């Protein structure tokens, strides 16, 4: 790269060797990532194959922990809850996409809408959870509104048939603005002359969307779907912790929250690790797609 003999007299303590210095500069990042993420992942996998109780020596038990999971009603409930959550994905993608297209096509006050819709996304899950705890209580604003409209009040968070639904709705409320921004960024890359041409051909609003806008943002739709799904699996802890604590019963316990509960019981790290590995397996496939999208973008 550079001719080292030229700069030799100016060489400093760390040297002007890009190879050596490059390695040195990347060490802090690499060390942190390896010590706190890569090694724990491997360690966790190892632990998941043992009956370690945190005290006596760990004994290798193979897939016994995983086999036990399939008989654990709480774990099964958490998986079912997760599947219900995942089934709502079309709403999580469709709603922000629809809003983004409308804003992009010049709905009056579009900039204001964008700012207001994104606003909940900057609030932490604890803040959102605490606020909705007040609003969704039996004597809260939401029920007051329903009663004013002639409906009867529902105990949204205290009833096991509505709690998961409420949790999902609150998380959607808190995050749809984030997806909206992703879609707006994608829409800004759609060439405007294509839209003009469609207009000249007399295509209506919905025709333009269906034939031009949506096909041209397909990569963004894919990206948003992957990122949202990852978020569903890993970003609900704070909200569950504050809003429902996993209950009533197990009705809002998702795998990520179950790991937290199990980790609190320090005598079963092997079992807790097995749940972690199941979650990791679910994520790995999704993340693989995400990384492919990201490394396509990073020009390295």
């Amino acid at each position, binding site marked *: 790269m550079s001719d080292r003999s030229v700069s030799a007299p100016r060489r400093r303590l760390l040297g002007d060797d890009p190879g050596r210095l490059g390695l040195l*500069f990347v060490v802090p990042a690499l060390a942190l990532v390896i010590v706190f993420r890569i090694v724990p992942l491997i360690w966790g996998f190892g632990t998941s194959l043992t009956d370690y109780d945190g005290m006596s020596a760990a004994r290798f038990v193979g897939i016994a922990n995983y086999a036990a999971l399939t008989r654990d009603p709480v774990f099964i409930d958490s998986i079912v809850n997760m599947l219900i959550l995942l089934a709502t994905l079309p709403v999580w993608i469709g709603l922000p996409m629809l809003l983004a297209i409308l804003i992009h096509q010049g709905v009056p006050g579009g900039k204001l*809408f964008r700012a207001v819709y994104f606003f909940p996304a900057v609030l932490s899950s604890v803040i959102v959870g605490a606020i909705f705890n007040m609003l969704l209580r039996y*004597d809260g604003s939401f029920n007051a509104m329903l009663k004013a409209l002639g409906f009867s009040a529902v105990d949204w968070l205290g009833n096991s048939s509505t709690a998961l639904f409420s949790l999902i709705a609150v998380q959607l409320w808190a995050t749809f603005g984030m997806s909206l*921004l992703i879609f707006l960024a994608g829409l800004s890359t759609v060439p405007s002359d294509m839209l003009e041409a469609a207009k000249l051909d007399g295509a209506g609003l919905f025709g333009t969307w269906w034939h031009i806008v949506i096909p041209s943002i397909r990569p963004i739709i894919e990206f948003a779907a992957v990122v949202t799904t990852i978020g569903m699996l890993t970003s609900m802890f704070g909200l569950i912790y504050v809003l429902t604590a996993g209950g009533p019963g197990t009705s809002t316990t998702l795998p990520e929250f179950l*790991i937290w509960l199990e980790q609190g019981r320090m005598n079963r790290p092997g079992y*807790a690790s097995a749940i972690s590995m199941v979650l990791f397996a679910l994520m790995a496939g999704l993340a693989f797609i995400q990384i492919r999208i990201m*490394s396509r973008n990073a020009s390295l």
Partner: protein
Amino acid sequence: MAAVEIRQKRALTLIALPMVLLALSCVYPVFFTINAALKTRKGFVLDRFGLASDPTLANFAQAWTQSRLSEYFTNSVVVTIGAVLTLLVVSSLAGYALAVLRFRGAKIVFTIILVSLMIPVQVVLVPFYRTMIALDLVNSRAGLVIAYTAFFLPFSVYLMTAFYARLPRELFEAAQIDGAGLVQVWWHIMLPMGKPALITLGILNTLYCWNDVLISLLVLQDERTLMVGIAALRGEYTTNVPLLAAGIVLAAAPIVIIYVIFQRQIVSGIAVGAVKG
């Protein structure tokens, strides 16, 4: 053509109506919370939804001192600032090394960083906690700074690498010919040139650190960060809604202020993560 445009305009105006309702749903919870925080406990019980007729700041004072939010606030500020600064320095160094210096093995390192992106805290919760204990980092603010850095780092490194890779290479080579050492190039050229990316990352990471609850619950058990404090407050004061509301307002205020000031950078930061190149 004009007819189509008029029709489109009319359709868009009609659609704006439900959009206004949705916007109100985004604003109302915030309004309710601030309004509740300004009421006395008795005033709230008598009238939950009306405007605070006799606004008081007493709830804020009580939450701040009696509920120890001031201590938690300090913890959050110290840890967030520490983690964000560490994140910026470490990710700028790594981005420079990966994108510009291109040492042998850079590709492997970049892959390891990207792979670690798919390891969320929950997946490594048990061994991560044990690592923290082994390194004596539990119950220390420095420990929480290190934990945040480790977990929010991969995205930052990815973004800095992508940003530096797009700077013209001549910049780096010219500085070298002028006799600048590689460390000086980082300090005098890469760091200033990377300012837009660093500002975006600074704000995003501030949001992440300030808003986190899981890592903080695990690492700071004796003391608390503000978010853990608010979660606890919710548990303790289910009947004193105005006090809880005041705590919520205090905890959210710094982030809301940052959002209002840096809206543009936040939006562009998210856009960078989504589409590029």
